[in-house]
């Protein structure tokens, strides 16, 4: 073989081997395992910590059984515990970690119940100017067992 061809082929071989070596180092092992992405990232996303528990976690094991049975048979049963009480998975895991108390301000109840034009007409709404004389809603209404006048 002529020397200039030898050099050319050697260079080509080095380039190809170098490309394979660098690619093997850079591309993550799980890339392309399930498709054009890093397969391990699915696991990373699945292992993200859960922050909201479900209402059953509150009612089971005699923790909040009384309030759970009152809530689950009354008008606010579609409103889950954590909608008002905030994310509580930490508290479920370790009862010593207390979630902050539920917001009992008029404005918080008003997020759902102040009169707004865009709300479905059948939904119970009040005019905050004329209803309740600026008292906290829980003064008259039990949030776990609401009643409608």
């Amino acid at each position: 073989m002529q020397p200039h061809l030898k050099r050319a082929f050697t260079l080509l071989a080095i380039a190809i081997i170098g490309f394979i070596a660098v690619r093997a180092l850079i591309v993550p092992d799980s890339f392309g395992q399930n498709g054009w992405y890093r397969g391990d990232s699915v696991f990373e996303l699945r292992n993200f910590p859960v922050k909201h528990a479900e209402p059953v976690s509150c009612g089971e094991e005699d923790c909040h059984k009384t309030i759970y049975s009152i809530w689950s048979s009354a008008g606010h049963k579609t409103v889950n515990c954590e909608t008002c009480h905030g994310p509580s998975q930490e508290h479920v895991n370790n009862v010593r970690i207390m979630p902050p108390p539920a917001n009992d301000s008029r404005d918080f109840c008003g997020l759902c119940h102040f009169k707004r034009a865009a709300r479905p007409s059948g939904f119970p709404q009040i005019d905050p100017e004329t209803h309740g004389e600026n008292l906290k809603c829980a003064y008259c209404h039990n949030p776990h067992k609401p009643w409608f006048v």
Partner: protein
Amino acid sequence: MNLSRREFAKIGCRIVIGATAGTAMIESIATNGIAAENSPKGDYNWKEHYWGYLIDTRKCIGCGRCANACKLENNVPFDEPVYRTWVERYRIVNKGREENVTIDSPNGGINGFTDDIPAEQIKKAFYVPKICNHCENPPCVQVCPVGATYSTEDGVVLVDYNYCIGCRYCIQGCPYGARYFNTEKGTADKCTWCYHRITKGLQPACVEACPVGARVFGDLKDPESPVNKILDKERINVLKPDLGTKPKVYYVGLDREVR
């Protein structure tokens, strides 16, 4: 040695074929070994599920608890105007013969809405919760230059935060505005339908937080799932069906003004 043109071509072809075959062999040995021990099945088999989402706009009261719960669950920067899910308010005002549509979403609806248009001027008004549509044919996945965003077997569009280079093409590519740039991570970010929850049998945080059941989540492969039950009896629409993205977020009671 004198090389004829034919011989040169022969040797060249051999080298190219040999190198390609070698790369393919090394690749297949390397990836097969990993795929066997690290398959995405585990306790949750993603081939058994195909998730879907349904929003009944007739029930939504615009309380914004969904957007609030989403931010808390997924560590979305709370004080930045970025949302994985948000609530829009549509108000159609009748001024004589002209129709005027006002669309707003102050802080994604988290702090609620106040009426700044007199009720007697409003012809119709309603809330529309928005969320990533997890399209079957997602434009955001097509435009990603590095393979950092992808559709899973169970029909969820996810972002690989370690692989994303933060170029923002996907944010531009999404016709629904469902993606945002996460300044804490330095990557694009989006709704995952709470992938860490649904793979453990829980509901997404927004569905959990909704006090009126306007948001429904379920498995489209399970005929008894709540989503399928509503899909079977209600009249369904999706957002921007003309784009061919095939969204998996179905809407009940959508107005023609909603985009």
